[in-house]
Structures are given as C-alpha cells and as structure tokens.
C-alpha cells in the first residue's frame, strides 16, 4: 500500500516469556499507514500477547517498538494512548452500569469549571463522532443495555475519541453474529479510508481474506510468514497456520460402533444473556466410536457441554445417557447414569487445586464405597485407590497426598482423565482434553481416548484443535452458531472442515 513512506509502527524481535512458556519468540511486525494488517494464528499462537505488549499491558523481555521510526517504550496503556494507539480488547473494557458517553470519555473527560464533568458536551462529542462514522449509537444508553455489536462500536469510539491512528482489534468477530461482523468490516473500511492503520487479530481465514491488506501468520509464538492478500488462499493460509509438521496422527483401527449410548435430541440451550446458544441440536454417539465436534470458539460448545453434563438447564429437547433420560437431572445423576466428563477448564472445574490428588480422584464418588462409608471418609482407601490410578495413568510429580496445584498441566490432566475413565462410564464427554498440554501429554490423552473407544465406550470429543478432531474422530460434526451444520467421515480434508467451521456452508441469508 503506502510503501513509499516508512511504516507507522514496527515491532522488532519482541520476545515475551511466561513461566514455562515462550509466548512470543522474536516476533517482527510492521504496519503501514492506512493498512489493515491481520494477525492470524491458532489459539495460543501468541497473538494476544503480542498486542498486549504493544498496548503497554505486558512488558516484553526483549525487542523494541518503533512508532514512525522512533523507538518508544510502552510501560502502560497511558503511554500507548499517548502514542496514538487504541485497542479493542477481546473482552470489552467497558463499565456496564455507565452510559456510552461516560465510557467513551473516561479519563479524558470534557470539563466545566475544571472539575465538573461536562456530560452534555460528552454526549455531544460522542454523538458527533458516532455520526461521522455512521454508527447508530445512543450516547445516553447504559452499556449493559446495548447489544454486543454496539458495545464493540463503543470500544472503537473510545479509541477514536482519544485520537488513535493505530487501532488494534483482538478477535473482534469472536463475539459477533455474521451480520454484525459484516457491519464491523464496513466500519473498518471507513476507518481505513480516513487514514487509520489497523491490526486485526483473528483465526478465521475467510474474514482475514476479506478485510486484510497483509496477513502475518503466527504459530507457537513465532512469526511464520507475512503475505499480501493478493494471491493468498484459504488453503495456503491454513497450511501456514497449522503447520504440517505438528500434525499428530493416532494409530487406530476402524471403529466398530454398536448401540447408541449418548443421544441428544432437538436440544436447545440458552446462555447467560438469555439468548439461544445451542439450537435444535440432535446427534447420537454409539458405543465404540469417537464423535468429534469441530467449531470455532464461542459457537455454543461450552453450553452444549454444560447441558450434556447437567451443569446448565436445558430449554428444550432431551439428553439420554445409556438409555436413561437425564435431561432434567443434576450433575450427580448424570455421573451415576454412566457419564464421564473431562471438563474444558481443569483449573476452574476439573480439579480442586488445593485438594490432594487422592481427594481430587474421589470428587464424584466420595459419598460411595470405598471412599466413604455412612458419611465417614476413609482416607486410607482413597490413597490406595489413588495410588493405583496414578500408576495406571502414569501421573508423575507427586503421590496421592500431593496437592493438585503442584503438578504440571499434563499431569493434572492425566489425573482428570484417570478420574473420569476409572469410573467406567458408558459415555465420555471430552472437552478440549489437550488444551495447554505438551506433546507428550497430548499423545497420552489421545491414545487413552482411543483405548476407551475400543473398550466400548461412546466418546464425544469437543475441541477447538482441528488436527485433534481430525486425527481422533470416527465421525465429525461441525458446530456453527449453535447448530450442527455438517457431518463428515474421518477422511474429510482440513480445508473442507475449516470452511464449514467458519460458516462457509451456511448461506448468508439462512445464518440468522
């Protein structure tokens, strides 16, 4: 684009380490005037870390930031703002109980007599600003009462109000409906025409190709390549993003499924905001097969998992585990009916980190023999049982009395898997079972899931990792916008899946 001048922003060799993780490994990035530059990568590729460094929220261990060719330090968001950088965070930084105008002007308020907030002026300026960019927004509305798409526009207004000429958007479409996303692209194009330079973070190929001028692909904290949009294809980008060399294949015999053990019919589930998150979903998982659910984050997976395991009330439809209707039962009764559940987040849910491993392994069954009798715990039995399980599942780094928090992520996950599998469930729901694990632990979990399949359990795998779904599943369902939009056999190509996952199969008109 405007390559005659130097870039407005340059990141050189940015390196950011967290304990045990290299989040950014000498990443370079440049941004030209009036350009939309997309940062593409899988979850955990280091995209968010990079822009948080740029916005002064993280301090890089190495590397430098140049604005208009001059090195600057970003010690705080304040300095980023002063350097003309605005950011729309993935989770909005808005105060729900305040009005749009208050949120926009916060910390840069128009004043009367030095101390008083000139609210009318704030409303006026926000209205003018909104009008200038053709945003339909009421400055007097409380943020909690407006839609997510409008909230995002408020975030953009915040940046514009502060005179930003570089705008960072972190996964802006993750929370939007397709229509809202289209509106956002319209806005971004307007901004671009006005001379704004934009960094756009996404993992959705289709929208990156639609909006970006150049695309930088990150993988495992490293910059892989920067390509112009012209000539870039979904196939090519997907290959860069996923990387052939990391694809894990699991040895497994063809599935021999028998009777259905986990059956979902016409399931509809609402989210916290009271909007349908899962809509009219039906599927069955048979004994001896792994069914994978592929989808982009936030398309109803969490709500589906919760509804399957009794942690969220079902609006309509039924859930049956091993023939028993458990739709309205508690979590406990789901477990008793023969469900195993490896939860999405082992820190939040899967483990009581301050409990010992023995106690964690007894989490579902502490009220039953042998862990307790007549209300009395039997710690000795717990420890004996735990010792056996820890050995069987090769958990390293501690014994039955070790606190769960003291283990590495991989070993923690092994504890969760051990607990769920050792209960001999008929159906096993595995949600993101390898999130944040190293290769060794991933292989272990994968092998184990296949073994459980071969034992005759029905395994439902819900994962955001495409290669995981591809390498493990005997059938693949694609979830998009809370609906199952496609079903494939195990030999489907990654590209084909990717298109279905990003709504490529759904005609725009029907997507609502």
């Amino acid at each position: 684009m405007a390559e005659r001048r130097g870039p407005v922003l340059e990141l050189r060799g940015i390196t950011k380490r967290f304990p045990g993780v290299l989040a950014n490994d000498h990443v370079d990035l440049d941004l030209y005037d009036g350009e939309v530059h997309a940062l593409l990568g899988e979850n955990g590729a280091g995209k968010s870390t990079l822009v948080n460094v740029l916005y002064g929220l993280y301090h890089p261990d190495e590397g430098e930031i140049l604005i208009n060719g001059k090195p600057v330090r970003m010690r705080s968001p304040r300095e980023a703002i002063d350097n003309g950088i605005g950011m729309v965070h993935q989770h909005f930084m808005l105060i729900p109980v305040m009005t749009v105008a208050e949120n926009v002007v916060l910390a840069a308020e128009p004043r009367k007599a030095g101390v008083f907030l000139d609210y009318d002026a704030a409303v006026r300026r926000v209205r003018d600003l909104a009008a200038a960019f053709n945003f339909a927004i009421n400055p007097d509305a409380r943020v909690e009462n407006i839609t997510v798409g409008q909230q995002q526009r408020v975030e953009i207004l915040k940046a514009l109000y502060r005179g930003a000429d570089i705008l960072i958007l972190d996964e802006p479409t993750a929370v939007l409906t397709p229509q809202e996303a289209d509106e956002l692209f319209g806005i971004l194009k307007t901004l671009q025409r006005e001379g704004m330079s934009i960094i756009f973070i996404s993992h959705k190929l289709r929208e990156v190709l639609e909006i970006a001028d150049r695309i930088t692909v990150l993988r495992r904290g490293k910059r892989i390549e920067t390509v112009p949009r012209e000539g870039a294809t979904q196939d090519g980008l997907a290959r860069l993003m996923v990387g052939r060399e990391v694809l894990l294949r699991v040895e497994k015999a063809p599935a021999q499924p028998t009777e259905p053990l986990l059956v979902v019919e016409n399931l509809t589930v609402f989210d916290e905001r009271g909007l349908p998150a899962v809509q009219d979903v039906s599927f069955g998982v048979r004994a001896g097969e792994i069914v994978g659910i592929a989808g982009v984050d936030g398309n109803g997976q969490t709500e589906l998992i919760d509804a399957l395991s009794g942690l969220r009330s079902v609006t309509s439809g039924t859930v049956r585990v091993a023939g028993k209707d458990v739709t309205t039962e508690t979590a406990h009764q789901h477990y008793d009916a023969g469900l195993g559940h490896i939860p999405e987040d082992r820190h939040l849910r899967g483990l009581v980190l301050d409990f010992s491993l023995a106690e964690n392994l007894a989490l579902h069954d502490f009220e039953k023999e042998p862990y307790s009798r007549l209300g009395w715990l039997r710690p000795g039995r717990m420890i004996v049982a735990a010792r056996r399980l820890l050995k069987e599942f090769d958990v390293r780094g501690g014994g039955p009395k070790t606190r769960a928090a003291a283990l590495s992520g991989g070993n923690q996950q092994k504890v969760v898997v051990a607990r769920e599998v050792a209960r001999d469930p008929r159906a096993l729901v595995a949600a993101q079972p390898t999130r944040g694990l190293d290769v060794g632990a991933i292989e272990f979990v994968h092998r184990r899931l296949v073994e459980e399949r071969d034992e005759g359990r029905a395994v439902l795998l819900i994962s955001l990792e495409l290669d995981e779904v591809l390498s493990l599943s005997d059938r693949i369902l694609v979830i998009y916008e809370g609906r199952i939009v496609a079903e494939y056999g195990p030999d489907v190509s990654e590209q084909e899946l990717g298109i279905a996952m990003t709504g490529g199969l759904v005609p725009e008109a029907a997507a609502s």
Partner: protein
Amino acid sequence: MSEPQPPPPGPPEEADVAEPSIEADPEAQTSLAARWDLYQRTGGVITPLLTAIFAFFVGGLVVLVTTGKNPLSTYRAIFDGTGLNWFFPWVTGQEREFAAEDLQQTLLVTTTLILVGIAVAFAFRCGLFNIGGQGQYIAGMIAALQVGVWLPDLAHVPHMILAAGAGALAGAVWAGIAGILKATVGAHEVISTIMLNWIALWIGSYLVGFNGPLQDPNQVFVPVTSEVSQGAKLNVWWGDPKLQGLHIGFFVAIAALVVFWIVLNRTTLGYQVRAVGFNPEAARYGGISVGRNYFLAMAISGAFAGLAGSVDILGWLFRVDLTSVQLSSQIAFIGIAVALLGRNTPLGIFFSALLFGALLNGTSTRNLDPTVFQPELASNLTLIIQGLVVLFVGADLLILYLWRARAKLRRKLRSEPVAQR
C-alpha cells in the same frame, strides 16, 4: 462484595501457566479457604509466631513511649496475672494457690475463645466469613439459660446436655439465617451476620433488660435474668465452684477442637465443605450442592458459637445480664483473631485462644498489679496487640514475601554441597 472466586493456581513457584492470557481474570480473588490453605502451607508456625512477637514488640514500645515504664516488667506482671506461672515447678505455696486461681480464670476465657475461634474457622473453610459470632453467642446464651431455668426437676446430666445443646442449636439457627440467605439469594454473609448481630443484641437486651420477659422477678432493679437451676450447671473440676473454678466446659472446647478436625477431614460433609470453600465451581462440577453446603457450614459454625454462649452460662455466669450481652461483641471479634492467628488448625486455635485468653485475663483489673501497670491501660494494650496480630496475619503479600525469602534461603542451602541429602 462478590461471591468467592475460584482460587488462582497456587503460589508462583508452583504455578502452572499453560496459557498465559491477560483475559485469565487476574483479578480473580483468592477464595478465603484457599487463602487459609496458603497460610498453612507457607507460614507454617513461623508466621503466626513472628506476627505475635512483632505485635508484642510494638505493644512494648507503646508502653515505653507513653508511660516510660519498662515493657518487660509490664509483660511480666501481665504474665503473672494470667496464672501461667502455675506451670513452673518453682512456684510454690501461697503463690501457687493464687496462680492456680488465675489460671482457672484464664482457662475459662480460653474455653470461650476456642469455641468462637472454631466457629470462625469452620465457616472459613467453606469460604465464608462468619462475622456474626456475637449474635450466635447471644442466641446460645439465652437458649441455654432458658432450658437451664426451665425443667428444674430434670436430672443433672441430661439437663446439662439439653441446655448446652439448646444453646448450640440456637446459634446454628441464628447463623443458618445468614446461610440460607447466602445460598438462595446470594446475600453476602458478612453483611447479613453483622445485621443479625445487632438484632440479637437488641433482642437480647430487651429480653434480659428492665421489665423484659426474662428478667428475674425477684430483682426488679437489676437487668439480669434468673439463675439456671443447679441441675443444669456444669461441674467444676478444678478450683472452688463458688469462685468461678474451671468447669468441664473446658473439655467440651477441647472435644470441639477434635470434632472440628474430624468433621472437616474425616466426613463426607467436611469433604464437601472444603471443596466448596476451595473452588465452588469445581465442587458443582463434581456433583456437590454448593448452596446446601453454604447453609450447613454456616449452621455448624453458628452451633460452635452458640455452644460458647451455653458453656459460659452453664459454667460460670449462670445468669444473663445486660453487660454480658453487650460484652459479647468483644468475645466474638477476638474469635476472628483466634482463628486467623491459629491458622485454622485445632492446635493453632488452642494456642491462640490461650494467648488471647491469657492476655484478657492478665490485663483485667482483678489480676494485674496496678503498682506495676494500670490495668485499664493494659486492657487497651491487649486490644492494640490483637489489632496488630489480625492486621499482619491477614496480609497475604507479607506472608508471600516471607515464604519466598525462605524458599530462596533453602535453595541457597541446597546448592551448597554439604547441605545435600
């Protein structure tokens, strides 16, 4: 005030940072229960000891600066007033008799403090802050008194048990209100227990005050109730029953410490309570009813505070008067200090209750030699020391600093070849 949040992944050394993200809610507040656990693991016995020593040191400075008196001789006089010198074999004769009397007094107070300390500690383990010990204590006093006054013909042992049980039950009910509110509408237990304290205080004052329904009809000019009948009084096993010797309530308190430990660590109820306290979301996932446990933990906690009220009434007060209703706030709040300093462990609670019991008794007008130090000053000194203890014992980061310093020191020692195993 928010619901207790899921605990963060432990102290930094052990943190498992798989996916560092700014969105990982860095504000996630350590749940109370996880904090307690952290204290136990990090501080061990060292932090509370250091804290106590520091608090006494500051107290000594106060004495020195304001009165110019020797802090050591002041503390010595307080110590002598506690009767703890009874344990020294060289204290004999008359002095030993006095010491025994003083020690009985100290242990009387310790008994109460152990029970209110357990009350606070038990709720803490479920992630709840029971600041309502006062109300539960008052409820316990009045219920025990009523049962103690009624049924004068009942045999001794059943009467004692019935009266003490009534007190515990009353405490449980009073705290249970806060528990139910927490479980059903999510009302923060700190606010509701504070309100329940004052409601209990005024209802209690009304009941025992002038013309109140419980006032002793034979003493219309004193705001005091009738005395519990002889059968309900707890046996005195050490010292003169007429001079407030030590009653068997002391053993009740010791037993309560054991019960506290057993319920938490050896019953399925305790398992649930701890799971909810550490991580309500994981407990829910595990199939545990979080609300039910909030209620039960509050009720059990209240039962201990109510029991404290009953043993005081049945053991040595025998009547409820307006002063004891009003003084209850002191006792209940010291319970918080006891639980904090005792780090939630039975042994810790015992020793910190003994420390505060000794301080209270040693600085009382009756026991402190006024020629050495004015008891009125000393009792306020006690408050300052309590305040400092609570302030420093509750400071997370201070504890973490100490912990890290210790870990560093250890690593250093380890790296030296001699220190290797």
